[in-house]
């Protein structure tokens, strides 16, 4: 195995030998399972749950392998390994998902053992990217970098990863279970729409505690998470989560897949009763076994120690000069930079949404280019955002002009992060066996309609989110503009919502009116944006405009005054 060098990439959790031995054994186990399947020793019914436990689905065109990227953090070596797998075993590209994972779409079963071995060599796998278990824990893509961060959520995301990995009691839950954690006041991790959402906070004396929400989720029955606890001390975090999962495991419905998520349990029994049950369970199990040892926290925290930042002035003259001399660069810096906690640095969003591109797709060459740029400019570390972009979290402001030019050479310089062109889109009917309608080509169509970047910047932040079926992988319920594809008698049809958001002011979008046809979607989006531009007040966001004037004017704009 060619394990990652310990050469100090920023914020990467490195496996120990126990992790690596386990992963190697798991690869060999799956190699034998594939051989037994191909020889007929295992039936498809017996094999299917095994392959799913390793992230291997059978999708519309071929097998699809979903690879876990814990809390969206990758080393450059890991990204390079993904690029090689994409080139060697797939079609030269991969798709970054709203779960901060990566999917390959054209995988052969016979190749999977070798792919898993290649992944294991860089401490990666596809375990718990499928099935009714605790899935990849997701977090803020700017963790450890954002100027507004209070607590670094990666530390706790890693603790949760270790706690939930192969947890024997939670491997066969009523349904899949998703946990998201943020450590900032501004929620970039969409915690309100996860089974458990955690906001890490700082208390008196610097003590860390957690506000816990439960029962959020999208899909067929969207719910925002309800507050379960205002303040869970750090030491009790795992005990509390263990209690929540135990209550869910006991009372969650297994009779109906559509009612099996914890959001339905919360809805049916009520948050107060659920809290009582969780508190009873927590009181019962409370003790050393579930107490999070501060020494363990500190050990994990050391993995996420800040990289060797240079002492720099807060404002870079080189950056300001480049901004003044190049409007295109200046525009990119307005949309694709996030303030960094360290003076003289910035967090850079690499948009995977070029005009007319496929949201979230990156070629092997692009992955390798980003890995090289991460080595050169960001301590060898890359993040994947749930908005299907990549992030270099720690870039010196002085280096931004050079970085931008390099990104441009690889088609990665789209100046649209957070704008209309930065569309979240699930794979939809073009790849997904569950989808009812296409989503990617509509995202491309909308992206082309707003190809004028100056227009996008005039419009300002506006999130379009699109799903090709009710499972809502594209988070359409929480888009400023949400688009849901449905199959109406064999015809792709789209329901439009407005006013949703997944931030700390989380809200579910409201339906604008009757569903529209495939060819009308981009026109509708244009009309909605046009009305926003007509009616918005000074500095008013799309969401604020919808809240102030209501849905009706938007409906009339789309369907006519008689609507």
């Amino acid at each position: 195995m060619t394990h990652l060098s310990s050469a100090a990439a920023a914020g990467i959790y490195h496996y120990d030998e126990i992790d690596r031995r386990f992963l190697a054994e798991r690869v060999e186990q799956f190699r034998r399972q594939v051989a037994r399947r191909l020889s007929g020793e295992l039936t498809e019914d017996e094999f299917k749950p095994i392959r799913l436990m390793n992230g291997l689905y059978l999708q519309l065109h071929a097998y699809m392998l979903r690879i876990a990227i814990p809390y969206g953090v990758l080393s450059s070596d890991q990204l390079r390994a993904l690029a090689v797998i994409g080139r060697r075993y797939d079609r030269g590209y991969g798709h970054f998902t709203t779960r901060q994972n990566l999917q390959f779409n054209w995988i052969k079963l016979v190749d999977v053992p070798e792919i898993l071995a290649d992944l294991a060599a860089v401490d990666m796998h596809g375990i718990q990217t499928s099935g009714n278990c605790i899935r990849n824990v997701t977090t803020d893509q700017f963790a450890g970098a954002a100027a507004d961060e209070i607590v670094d959520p990666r530390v706790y995301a890693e603790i949760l990863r270790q706690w939930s990995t192969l947890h024997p009691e939670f491997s066969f839950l009523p349904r899949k279970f998703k946990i998201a954690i943020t450590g900032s006041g501004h929620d970039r991790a969409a915690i309100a729409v996860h089974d458990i959402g955690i906001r890490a906070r700082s208390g008196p004396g610097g003590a860390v505690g957690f506000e816990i929400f439960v029962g959020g989720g999208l899909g067929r029955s969207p719910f925002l998470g309800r507050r379960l606890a205002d303040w869970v001390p750090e030491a009790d975090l795992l005990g509390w989560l263990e209690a929540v999962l135990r209550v869910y495991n006991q009372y969650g419905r297994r009779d109906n897949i559509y009612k099996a998520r914890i959001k339905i349990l919360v809805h049916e029994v009520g948050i107060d009763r659920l809290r009582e049950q969780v508190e009873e369970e927590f009181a019962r199990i409370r003790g050393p076994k579930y107490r999070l040892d501060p020494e363990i926290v500190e050990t994990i925290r050391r993995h996420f120690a800040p990289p060797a930042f240079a002492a720099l002035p807060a404002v870079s003259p080189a950056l300001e000069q480049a901004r003044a001399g190049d409007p295109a660069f200046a525009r990119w810096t307005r949309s694709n930079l996030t303030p960094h906690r360290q003076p003289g640095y910035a967090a850079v969003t690499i948009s995977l949404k070029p005009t007319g591109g496929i949201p979230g797709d990156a070629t092997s060459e692009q992955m390798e280019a980003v890995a090289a740029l991460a080595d050169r400019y960001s301590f060898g570390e890359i993040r994947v955002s749930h908005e299907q972009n990549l992030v270099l979290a720690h870039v010196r402001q002085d280096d931004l002009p050079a970085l931008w030019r390099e990104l441009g050479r690889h088609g990665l310089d789209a100046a649209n992060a957070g704008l209309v062109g930065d569309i979240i889109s699930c794979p939809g009917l073009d790849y997904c066996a569950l989808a009812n309608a296409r989503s990617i080509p509509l995202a491309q169509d909308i992206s082309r309609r707003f190809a004028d970047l100056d227009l996008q910047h005039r419009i300002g932040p506006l999130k379009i989110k699109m799903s090709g079926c009710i499972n809502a992988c594209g988070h359409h319920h929480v888009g400023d503009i949400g688009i849901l594809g449905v199959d109406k008698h064999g015809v792709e049809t789209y329901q439009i919502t407005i006013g949703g958001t997944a931030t700390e002011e989380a809200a579910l979008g409201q339906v604008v009116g009757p569903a529209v046809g495939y060819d009308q979607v981009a026109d509708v989006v244009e009309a909605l944006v046009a009305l926003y531009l007509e009616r918005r007040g000074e500095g008013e966001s799309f969401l604020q405009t919808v809240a102030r004037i209501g849905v009706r004017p938007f409906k009339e704009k789309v369907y006519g005054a008689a609507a």
Partner: protein
Amino acid sequence: MARSGEEAKVVSANRLDTGVVVWLGDGNVWVERVEAAVPLSGPAADAALALARQSVEARVVVEPYLVEVTVVGGHPQPLRPRERIRALGPSVRPDLGIQAGTVG
């Protein structure tokens, strides 16, 4: 076999070892082009599906099912968008899938 202009069904599945989409063609051979699939109606379609299940037992394919088609010029064309995309490849990547000859 169904005639031109008729609605009928074909059997589709994925190859076990590669996952490639296949269709049941003449002589019960699995083919990669839907045009070469045999369109069938009524009990003949159900019988073909039963035959396909034997292919599952033989570890050639997985997850066989019937796909609704219309027969044009003697060749089946899937009726639903899902199956049309599955037969050709992603509509957003004409360079991939059977439409580009890159399957297998």
